[in-house]
């Protein structure tokens, strides 16, 4: 179990099935993240965590639950509501060689502090000709599905992945969350670690089946840039990440009843991006559906499709993308349900992409 790189073999056919390794305990995604943080904090005095409501509250989405008890207020630091100051301070501390983790409570709040993120955190390594590095992690909650409206429900994968200089991580299971967090803290570059609220396993926001998985007690890393085939299939490649891995798996189970065998690829990191796994899969299936919870235009969906098209245009028989249709997230339930892709939208896109093949023939 204690492998340094326990690549999950894509043997697991369905969502939520146990991984090939034998592990006795299941963890929620938040517990798995916290376990990795605690481990790194024990190993390295230079690691600390800063954010709003991360100490006594334990993180609004349980991202730091229990850490205060072990590490105290000096290393699990509540800060004033001053994102520019504390995220910028994390950049400064990282440049001094410390390994800060700074939490932006909701990704939507990036607007008040983006300058520190993209003009400092992301660029200082480059601008300094690598004489400076910024080994910090920026954790942040993403996602809707609970009607919190346009300022608290965005996913913004594309915004962060678009700007060069930061690695961008999006776990979908507890197993991945832990391995990716170990990697994020050990990485010498700034890493944006985006966790979906709906996957954390918090009491007041029930998670779907799937993110709670067996998790080894030992530390292990999942290398960045290694997409994971969460379900093997022959007919169509569904590329996704975060919450939508689970929605795609749900769709795949439904499609299987109709004799359509979908492969579900979880990107796990956006920067670096494992286009190889995607291209290989498309070479096999010929059909590509990309699904995410970010705005449709200028985002992950376009990026994946372009990267496949650039290299393997001949393999592509049909392409679809499923994403939020370029509207801010509406509050009211019927409208939110409309714009956030559900399993049925994924299934419809898969059916549609396959029908284009017969239509083209």
């Amino acid at each position, binding site marked *: 179990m204690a492998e340094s790189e326990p690549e999950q073999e894509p043997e697991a056919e369905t969502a939520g099935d146990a991984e090939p390794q034998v592990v006795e305990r299941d963890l929620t995604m938040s517990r798995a993240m916290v376990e990795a943080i605690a481990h790194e904090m024990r190993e390295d005095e230079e690691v600390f965590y800063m954010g*709003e*409501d991360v*100490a*006594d*509250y334990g993180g*609004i989405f349980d991202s730091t639950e229990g850490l205060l008890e072990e590490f105290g207020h000096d290393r699990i630091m*509540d*800060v*004033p*509501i*001053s*994102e520019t*100051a504390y995220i910028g301070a994390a950049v400064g501390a990282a440049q001094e060689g410390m390994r800060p983790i700074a939490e932006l409570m909701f990704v939507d*709040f990036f*607007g*008040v502090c983006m300058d520190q993120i993209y003009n400092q955190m992301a660029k200082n390594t480059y601008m300094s000709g690598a004489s400076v590095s910024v080994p910090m992690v920026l954790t942040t909650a993403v996602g809707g*599905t*609970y*009607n*919190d*409206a*346009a*300022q*608290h429900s965005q996913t913004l994968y594309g915004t962060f992945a678009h700007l060069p200089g930061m690695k961008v991580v999006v776990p979908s299971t507890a197993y991945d969350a832990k391995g990716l967090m170990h990697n994020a803290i050990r990485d010498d570059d700034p890493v944006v670690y985006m966790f979906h609220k709906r996957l954390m396993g918090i*009491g*007041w*926001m029930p998670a779907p089946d799937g993110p709670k998985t067996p998790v080894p007690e030992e530390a292990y890393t999942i290398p960045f840039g290694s997409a994971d085939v969460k379900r093997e299939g022959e007919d169509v490649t569904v590329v996704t990440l975060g919450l939508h891995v689970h929605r795609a798996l749900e769709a795949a189970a439904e499609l299987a009843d109709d004799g359509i065998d979908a492969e579900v690829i979880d990107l796990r990191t956006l920067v670096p991006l494992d286009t190889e796994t995607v291209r290989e899969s498309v070479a096999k299936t010929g059909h590509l559906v990309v699904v995410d919870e970010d705005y*449709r235009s200028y985002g992950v969906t376009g990026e994946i*499709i372009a990267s496949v*098209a650039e290299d393997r*245009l*001949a393999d*592509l*028989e*049909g*392409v*679809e*993308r*499923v*994403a939020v*249709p*370029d*509207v*801010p997230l*509406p*509050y*009211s*339930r*019927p*409208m939110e349900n*409309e*714009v956030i892709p559900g399993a049925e*939208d994924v299934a*419809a*896109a898969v059916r*549609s*992409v396959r029908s*284009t093949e017969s*239509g*083209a023939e």
Partner: protein
Amino acid sequence: MFEDMVTARYYEERLQEEYLEGKQPAFDISAGPIPGELHLAAGQEAAAAGVCRHLRDDDTVTAPHRPHHVAIAKGVDLKRMTAEIFGRETGLCGGKGGHMHLFDPDAGFACSGIIAEGCPPAVGAGLAASKRNEDSVAVAFLGEGAISQGGFFESLNLAAVRELPVVFVIEDNDWAISMPKERVSDVADGSRRAEGFDMPGTRVDSDDAVAVSEAAKEAIGRARDRNGPSLLEVQVHRRMGHFMGDPQTYRPEADQEAAADRDSIERLAAELRRRGVEDETLESIREDAHERVDEAIEWAKDQPEPSPEDAYEDVFANPPSGVTDEEPAYDLGTDARAGVESGGDD
């Protein structure tokens, strides 16, 4: 003031009941008729009522994520606000905004869920009034936690250098979610931040609506007379959790009890009685307020939900062609077909 305060308190009691419906037994934030976060302002009514009684309809108020008591005091349409909170089509924002993002231009009211981000737009409203030579004023409400935010400082400075008719009102309820004031600021009196901008700063040390009203009268009068901005801080109390569902494990029992023991509404009632107002009068104000609230809630619940397609409307006031077509922008099928055709030349 009394009427606004009892309306706000009862309104939130009723909202709380409605909010909890369907979320039991285990609290599930996305269930029930009012999903999403809900931030209630019980214990903070005096600040809103004391300030807003000096405002006119053409004055502008920006409120933060905890907006209902301010909205009520500013005269926001109660029915349409409630319909918005229930996510209904006839709500103030057609169901797009929800409880943290209420807009009522007729009442001169807006709010935002991003901390301190109501300050710059209030400065903008003051700027507009000043450019147009009008005597309207703008008031930005924010919590004591919000005054650590850059947007607040920048707004104070801009308002000060341009001598704009803006009043910044800090509702100090001692807590910013789980963070007590003393852990995030070395200065207990937030109104002292005015000093750095050479503007008047006043703190009202209790949630005494009369005292708030007097202080607000001066600040607002100053703005209206074109004598520039000021900062007013009011000590209020957070009787509830930060949001509905907040377990408040971080908060000492004694602090919760102290907040519950202080009741600005009872305090004002006592003062009114002392000034000769009959109990019956107070009681009938209360009854009327309750009736209005119940009516608003019943009305709102009867309103239709928006249709899913309404989600595509309103992104732009002047939609570029093709953006708000009947067809959703990501209509499945057509795009893929286009993709196949263009890629099908091999």
